[in-house]
């Protein structure tokens, strides 16, 4: 359908539109007009992605003189593929109605592992080794060498791509990763380098958060994006954590050992070069004197990562004299490693600010702040000079240099925490030195500054006023949309008491109480006997889950559950969990029914959908607070309180509730779906906790469902499931319009105009 929002003609590829989608577009358009940033919360399953895409592309079409570029950031490759598939539908529709002038170029960009078509490179098992295998075949010196020695293996795809040079272009269209690979295979061009090259020409780019937020990657990939871009962060409820992770480094004992090995190898290489080709090292030295290395005069294929610090924090100076010579630099790194090794030997938990860390480093190891700052660039330059291609082996030393550069660059918003052992397992010494960033606004600030509009959107952004404070920006629009539904297809309940009327909670002093454990067990036993197909349970942590399942096993509760449904458990092992999930789905498909035990904040809670019969009920056992004794968390809380005036309690509750909302939101993925959500903890009935849940859940949480015991919950569940099993009318009746047609929209526009006139 085609309709107008103010002065923009919107092309929407479906015949009907949900009212909330329409509102979403209106708000989005205002943001674009104002060239500002916005925060939009809309429940999953309401077609957020298509609304976004169709408005922004239509906006672009309506302003042909100032074309905007869309940069769409997703969390996972799977979401990326889904987005591109939707875009394809939309693009076909626009081309159908507007002809070839509506043609755009849209590409998805991912790592080599996902884009490479060279079978020999792909044989490597993880991302880093794929990168290294690629570099072994494509680095400029390797290629130069191969002209002399024909037995060196090169990548044909890359060679062809280089040969085509400027002519290597993608024709307009929408390319998913699969399409890119197919195109690359067909033409014999390397899809990865082609896609990277096309980033500057594409109208729509879909890639992962890291390409914009992690300065190491963003410096290479995203530096050429123009200012007139709209950046969208989808599923952005965890964006603050992504930002923080991008600027945090942790060093363990193995890292130091690996780094030492790397240094030995580098030393060896330096000696070899000295004997054979002393000129190269000298040339590098001279270049550093002139400060050339920082200006990136190296050819595109050879760079792999940029500086870990943010662009405007990097000094535009020549590398200091004491690390210009390769062997001197290696010595400095050795001293740094030694110093870090000594610090790791500590028996106590230590917390330090970067300033004091740097000064003690200066006094004890004689390394200045400025030297630290340049570590990363210097290492990169050295590795290029030494023509090292197997970069995956050199990860430890890169991590250490990362650390050094960040510590040297930032004085505020970070702290260094050294823990001799994991709090939860004090008997096993596992020293770790962490440079943790507390300020999410640091990493995202360049994005806000650089681009015209940044859209942050997700199904759960409540409370919506906290995000601007965490990320320190001022949105022009921040809104939360409700889901319009033809029937009440979600049924949230707060269960505060067990069947014996005793309160249940995972509060620290209550969680190991046998009565609570039994009540939780009984709840599940009762529920599995009345809920068909799939049931998902989320626990607050792995250790709690292990404990409670062990107890249930002893008391026979697990056996009772198994009579009704099969039981699957998430573990920390990815392969095991994938297998469990796969079998869980099969059990749901064939009617046997299954329960999946999972952990909030785990992989499953973040990325796996339990839609339709795969999840008719989700039980959230307890409030998933973070581990509050963690030193990193404490440091961050302190920083938030001092800098942004956010109270510790507020932040913890906010964080716990967004995780809980994320978990329970897994069950409902579209309007035709239905599911129940049980919050099993008495603390949920308190207003300060509950009010932080997203609006679309709250609006279905009736007062009568706020303080339930097990038997009442069972009764409600029974009624709900019966009601939902009845056939229903999809378009909505009785004044509740949930699908708007073209005429409805026109009518709405008219009344809006009339309202304006009055």
């Amino acid at each position, binding site marked *: 359908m085609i309709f107008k929002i103010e002065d923009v003609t919107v092309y929407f590829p479906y015949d009907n539109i949900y009212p909330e989608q329409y509102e979403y577009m209106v708000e989005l358009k205002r943001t674009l007009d104002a060239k500002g940033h916005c925060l939009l919360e809309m429940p999953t399953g309401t077609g957020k992605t298509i609304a976004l895409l169709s408005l922004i592309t239509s906006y672009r079409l309506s302003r042909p003189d100032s074309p905007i570029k869309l940069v769409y950031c997703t969390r996972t490759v799977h979401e990326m593929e889904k987005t591109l598939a939707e875009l394809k539908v939309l693009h076909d529709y626009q081309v159908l109605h507007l002809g070839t002038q509506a043609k755009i170029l849209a590409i998805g960009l991912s790592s080599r592992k996902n884009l490479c078509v060279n079978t020999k490179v792909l044989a490597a098992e993880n991302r880093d080794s794929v990168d290294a295998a690629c570099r072994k075949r494509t680095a400029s010196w390797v290629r130069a060498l191969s002209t002399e020695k024909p037995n060196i293996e090169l990548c044909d795809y890359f060679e062809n791509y280089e040969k085509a040079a400027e002519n290597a272009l993608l024709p307009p269209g929408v390319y998913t990763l699969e399409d890119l690979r197919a195109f690359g295979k067909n033409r014999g061009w390397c899809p990865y380098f082609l896609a990277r090259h096309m980033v500057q020409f594409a109208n729509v780019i879909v890639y992962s958060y890291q390409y914009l937020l992690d300065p190491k990657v963003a410096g290479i990939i995203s530096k050429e994006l123009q200012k007139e871009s709209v950046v969208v962060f989808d599923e952005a409820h965890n964006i603050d954590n992504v930002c923080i992770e991008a600027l945090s480094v942790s060093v363990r004992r193995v890292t130091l050992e690996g780094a030492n090995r790397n240094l030995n190898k580098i030393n060896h290489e330096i000696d070899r070069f000295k004997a054979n080709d002393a000129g190269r090292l000298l040339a590098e030295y001279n270049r550093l004197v002139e400060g050339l290395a920082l200006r990136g005069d190296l050819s595109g294929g050879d760079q792999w990562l940029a500086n870990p610090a943010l662009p405007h924090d990097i000094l535009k100076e020549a590398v200091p004299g004491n690390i210009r010579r390769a062997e001197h630099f290696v010595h400095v790194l050795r001293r740094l490693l030694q110093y870090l090794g000594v610090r790791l030997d500590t028996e106590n938990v230590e917390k330090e600010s970067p300033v004091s860390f740097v000064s003690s480093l200066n006094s004890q190891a004689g390394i200045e702040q400025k030297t630290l700052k340049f570590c990363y660039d210097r290492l990169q330059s050295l590795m290029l000079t030494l023509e090292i291609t197997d970069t995956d082996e050199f990860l430890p030393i890169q991590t250490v240099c990362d650390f050094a550069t960040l510590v040297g660059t930032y004085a505020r918003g970070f702290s260094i925490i050294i823990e001799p052992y994991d709090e939860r397992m004090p008997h096993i010494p596992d020293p770790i030195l962490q440079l943790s960033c507390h300020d999410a606004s640091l990493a995202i600030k360049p994005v806000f500054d650089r681009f015209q509009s940044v859209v942050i959107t997700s199904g759960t952004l409540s409370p919506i006023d906290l995000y601007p404070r965490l990320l320190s920006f001022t949105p022009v629009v921040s809104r939360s949309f409700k889901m319009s539904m033809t029937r009440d297809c979600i049924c949230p309940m707060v269960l505060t008491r067990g069947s014996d009327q005793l309160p249940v909670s995972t509060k620290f002093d209550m969680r190991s109480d046998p009565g609570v454990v039994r009540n939780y067990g009984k709840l599940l036993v009762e529920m599995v*006997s*009345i*809920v*068909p*197909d799939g049931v998902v349970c989320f626990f607050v942590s792995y250790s709690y889950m292990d404990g409670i399942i062990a107890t249930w096993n002893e008391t026979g509760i697990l056996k009772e559950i198994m009579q*009704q*449904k099969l039981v699957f458990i998430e573990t920390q092992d990815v392969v095991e969990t994938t297998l469990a999930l796969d079998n869980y789905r099969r059990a*749901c*498909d*064939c*009617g*046997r*029914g299954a329960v999946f035990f999972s952990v909030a904040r785990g992989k499953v809670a973040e990325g796996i959908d339990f839609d*339709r*019969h795969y999840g*008719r009920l989700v039980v959230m056992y307890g409030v998933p607070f973070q581990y509050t004794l963690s030193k990193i968390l404490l440091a961050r809380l302190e920083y938030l309180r001092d800098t942004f005036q956010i109270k510790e309690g507020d932040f913890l509750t906010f964080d716990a509730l967004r995780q809980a909302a994320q978990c329970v939101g897994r069950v409902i993925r579209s309007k035709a779906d239905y599911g129940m959500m049980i919050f099993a903890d008495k603390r949920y009935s308190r207003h300060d906790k509950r009010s932080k849940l997203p609006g679309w859940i709250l609006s279905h949480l009736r007062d009568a469902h706020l303080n339930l015991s097990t*038997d009442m919950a069972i009764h409600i569940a*029974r009624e709900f*499931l*019966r*009601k*939902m*099993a*009845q*056939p229903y009318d999809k378009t909505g009746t009785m004044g509740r319009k949930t699908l708007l047609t073209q005429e409805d929209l026109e009518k709405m526009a008219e009344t809006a105009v009339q309202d304006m006139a009055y």
Partner: protein
Amino acid sequence: MSNQRKRLTGEREDEDDEDAEGIGEWERAYVDDRSWEELQEDESGLLRPIDNSAIYHAQYRRRLRMLSAAAAGTRIQKGLIRYLYIVIDFSRAAAEMDFRPSRIAVMAKHVEAFIREFFDQNPLSQIGLVSIKNGVAHTLTDLGGSPETHIKALMGKLEALGDSSLQNALELVNEHLSQVPSYGHREVLILYSALCTCDPGDIMETIQKCKKSKLRCSVIGLSAEMFICKHLCQETGGLYSVAVDEVHLKDLLLEHAPPPPAIAEFAIANLIKMGFPQRAAEGSMAICSCHKEVKIGAGYMCPRCKARVCDLPTECTICGLTLVSSPHLARSYHHLFPIAPFDEVPAFSSLNDSRRTLGKSCFGCQQSLIGTGNKPGQCVTCRKCKHYFCLDCDIYIHESLHNCPGCESIHRPKSVSLMEE
């Protein structure tokens, strides 16, 4: 008013506690009736009985639309000779008490009613009963045309045990139905109270097998929607529904009584040999072929082998001829020529139309169509004769009478053309 409600709900909680010790007779009346559930609060907080008629009528309309949508336009073929297996799930879940007194009793009661209704509407068809218990499917009765034998077999075996297995039941039914003649329609109706199925093998294969052998599977669930049942019904072209309460269960069951539209590729026209036996004279004595004993009078004589049978319709035990009476055939007839659904008359437009306001009474029962409070009540109109009917008459005409009184009272020689067809 809310006080009263609280007391009522409070009573319900107490009742749960007292259940064990046994409760007084006067209390039991409340427990069984649950009369408070038939009340609801209106906007001003007053209690009033729930007005279900509108809901029921909406349900009925939807049913009707569904049937007529299938029949849209062309003359539709219906499977008048049906071979139906009723599978009743007597697993552990059937012992639950959410239907009063228990699911198993409620199921048995309504299956009994269904069997009678079924033979009334489909005199040429046969039924068999299968039960699931302890994960195994048992045959209660083989295919047969006598309601009494089925009901007897059903009522004798009322206990709920063990797991349920959909696959075992389907396999058993499939085996039984593989022998029925090709003109018959194979159907299975499953009353499923469990929420899971423990199967020995891959149920998906069994579903495909059912699909291949043109077995139409329908499921009525008693507690919640199950994916596998939905999948089964979608694949084999059956209906899947879940009962909300006892009344709804009855409605859902009875929906399966009229014959379903025939599957196109399967419905080959076929000639079937049938006998129309004569009723034996009063007082004549003969050895009955079905009971193997001497009976006096009130029997039928097979026209081919002259054996005596007690009931019609049936298959002659001696020569295997299908025995029916002509009223049976006639009764099956209306399925082929259903009356078109009546159009709903929008309430507000009827006020403006002067012609309509004058004759505002139902053509069926002659009652005024002006509802309470001088508001026009809902009414429907026949497309052909343009007469108005009230909702009760609408249901009566479509579900029982199968003739429109309006159209019948217009004099024209329609019956002749009907006979020719």
